C-alpha cells in the first residue's frame, strides 16, 4: 500500500495558545472555577476538535459496517476506514514490507503478537528479553507466553540515571533469544531507549524486535524503518485519537506466517462446515466489526499532529520537560526520577513524607490532574525503591504557566500535610 503524501507543515515553532483553542476540554473550569490543568497526558491525551468532528461526521453522515455492505454508506465507511492504514504507515515511517493491523490499543497489539507469533516461534529453553522499565502490558503477555512454552524471560536492568544497562543486554542476547520487547519511551522515567541499536544487536543473533511505541508516537517523529522494528505497536488514544483504536504494525512475512488472533467474521476467506481458511493480512487479525469510527478519527488525529509537525511538537515538549524538571527539582524534598540524556515528557517524582495519592488528590482540588501510583510498572517501582510515584506528563498543549501552578500546589500540599 503506497503511503499517502504528507501534508505541508509550516516548520514554525508551535503557537501554544492557538493550539489550546483546538481542545474544547481545556476551556473547562473545575472544582469551583479553577482552570483545568491537565498533566496526565501519558495516560491518555485530550482530543482536538478535528477528532471530535471526525467522530460526529462519521455517525451523522456515513455510519455503516465495513467490508460487507454494498451500498453508499458502506462504501464510504470502508474507504474512510481503509485510508487510515496509509495515514498510519506514513506517520510512523513504515517500510513498504509491512502491514498495519488495527487493534484496540497497545495492550491488544502486544497480546496479538504474543498469542499468534509467540507459540510457533518460542520453544522450551528459548529466551525473551524485555526490560526493567516496561509497562505491564509489555511484560505480562511475555510472562504468560514464557510460562506456557517453558521459555525464560530476562529483564534488562535499569541504570540509576534511568537508562538501560546495554552491557547486560548484550550479554543476555544469545542464539536462543527469540524476541526483544522494549519500550521506545518510558511512561515513568521518560527515557528514550536506543531502539535502533538494540534492534541491530537483536537481529545479529536472529531475534525479532517488538517496540512499544505507546509513548513515543505522540511525542517525537518516529520512523519504523530506521528503528528496524519487526513489530511496532501503539495506542491511538495517547495521540489525540479516541479510545478503542490502536495499531500493530508488523513485517509482512511475519504477519503472513502468524495464525489468526480471533475467529469470526471478517477474518475468513471461506468457511466450510467444519473448518475455514483465513483472509489475507491484515484482515486475518481483525475478526468482527472493528471500531470503525475510532479508526477513522485516529486518522484525523494523526493528520492533526502532522499539521502542527512532530518536529515542532518534539522541540516544544523538550523545552517544557526541561522546565518542569528544573522547577520540580528546586522544591525542597522533591526527587525527580529519570535523568537519561534523551527523555520524553513523563516526569515522575517523589515528595518526601507525602504519599503520591494524597498529593494527587490535593492538587486535583486545585484543578490540576496528575497521576499517582505504580504507573503499571511495578518491577520499576521496586527498582526505584518506592511503592508509588507521582507523575506529571506533558503534551504540546501544556504551558510553563501550568507547570508553575503544579509547583505552587505541591508547595501548598507540603504545608497542608505538615511537611512544608
Amino acid at each position, binding site marked *: 500500500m503506497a503511503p499517502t503524501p504528507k501534508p505541508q507543515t509550516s516548520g514554525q515553532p508551535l503557537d501554544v495558545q492557538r493550539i489550546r483553542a483546538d481542545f474544547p476540554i481545556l476551556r473547562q473550569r473545575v*472544582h469551583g472555577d479553577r482552570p483545568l490543568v491537565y498533566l496526565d497526558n501519558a495516560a491518555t491525551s485530550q482530543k482536538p476538535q478535528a477528532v471530535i468532528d471526525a467522530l460526529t461526521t462519521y455517525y451523522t453522515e456515513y455510519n455503516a459496517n465495513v467490508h460487507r455492505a454494498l451500498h453508499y454508506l458502506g462504501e464510504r465507511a470502508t474507504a474512510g476506514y481503509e485510508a487510515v492504514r496509509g495515514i498510519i504507515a506514513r506517520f510512523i515511517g513504515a517500510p513498504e514490507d509491512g502491514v498495519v493491523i488495527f487493534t484496540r490499543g497497545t495492550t491488544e497489539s502486544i497480546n496479538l503478537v504474543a498469542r499468534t507469533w509467540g507459540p510457533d516461534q518460542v520453544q522450551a529453553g528459548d529466551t525473551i528479553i524485555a526490560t526493567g522499565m516496561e509497562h505491564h502490558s509489555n511484560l505480562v503477555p511475555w510472562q504468560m507466553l514464557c510460562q506456557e512454552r517453558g521459555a525464560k524471560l530476562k529483564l534488562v536492568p535499569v541504570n540509576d540515571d534511568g537508562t538501560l544497562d546495554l552491557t547486560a543486554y548484550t550479554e543476555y542476547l544469545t542464539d536462543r533469544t527469540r524476541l526483544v520487547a522494549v519500550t521506545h519511551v518510558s511512561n515513568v522515567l521518560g527515557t528514550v531507549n536506543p531502539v535502533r541499536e538494540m534492534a541491530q544487536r537483536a537481529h545479529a543473533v536472529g531475534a525479532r524486535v517488538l517496540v512499544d511505541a505507546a509513548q513515543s508516537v505522540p511525542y517525537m517523529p518516529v520512523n519504523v524503518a530506521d528503528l528496524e522494528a519487526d513489530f511496532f505497536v501503539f495506542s491511538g488514544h495517547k495521540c489525540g485519537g479516541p479510545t478503542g483504536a490502536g495499531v500493530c504494525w508488523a513485517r509482512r512475512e511475519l504477519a503472513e506466517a502468524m495464525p489468526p488472533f480471533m475467529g469470526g467474521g471478517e477474518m475468513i476467506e471461506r468457511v466450510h462446515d467444519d473448518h475455514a481458511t483465513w483472509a489475507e493480512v491484515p484482515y486475518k487479525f481483525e475478526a468482527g466489526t472493528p471500531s470503525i469510527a475510532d479508526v477513522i478519527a485516529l486518522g484525523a488525529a494523526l493528520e492533526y499532529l502532522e499539521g502542527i509537525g512532530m518536529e515542532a511538537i518534539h522541540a516544544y515538549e523538550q523545552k517544557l520537560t526541561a522546565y518542569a524538571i528544573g522547577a520540580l527539582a528546586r522544591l525542597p524534598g522533591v526527587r525527580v526520577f529519570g535523568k537519561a540524556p534523551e527523555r520524553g515528557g513523563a516526569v515522575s517524582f517523589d515528595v518526601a513524607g507525602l*504519599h503520591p*495519592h*494524597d498529593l494527587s*488528590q490535593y492538587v486535583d482540588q486545585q484543578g490540576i490532574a496528575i497521576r499517582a*501510583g505504580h504507573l503499571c510498572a511495578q518491577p520499576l517501582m521496586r527498582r526505584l525503591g*518506592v*511503592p508509588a510515584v507521582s507523575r506529571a506528563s506533558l503534551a504540546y498543549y501544556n504551558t510553563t504557566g501550568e507547570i508553575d501552578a503544579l509547583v505552587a500546589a505541591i508547595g501548598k500540599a507540603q504545608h497542608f*500535610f505538615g511537611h512544608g
Partner: protein
Amino acid sequence: MDDLDQLYQDLILDHYKQPRHRQALADKDVSAEAENPLCGDQLRLAVEVDGNCVRSIRHDGKGCAISQASASMMSETLTGKPVAEVRALLGDFIAAMRDEREFDSAWPDEWLALQGVKKFPLRVKCATLAWHALNRALDKQGSS
C-alpha cells in the same frame, strides 16, 4: 468545609502524623497483609486475640494519609473489644463506607471523620484497607 478539608479532617491528619499502635512488625507476628494496587498502599497487621477478646492490634506499612490514619483509628477504637463485636463493627463500618448503610452518630469520632472519604470513591479502598485486613486476620485466628 470544602471537599478536601472533609477528606483530610484534622482528626485524620492527626492520626496520620502521629499514628497510634504503629510499630515495625517482625514477620512472624504479622497476621494479615493488605495491598491497594491503585496507589501502592501496603499494610501489615499483627493481631493478638486473648480468649474472646482482641487484645492488641499493631500495624506497619507504607501508604497514603487515609490508609495510614484509618489503620491507626481502627486499632485505637477496636482494641480491647470482644471478637464477635469487632467482627460486627467491621462489617458495619465497611458497609457504611460503601454507602450500604448510614453512619451511626453513636460511632467514635474517628469513624465519623472517615465519612468524608465517601465523596472520593477511589479512596474508599484506602479507608477500608486495614478493616478488610483485620477481618482476614480474625478469620485466620478463628480457623487455627
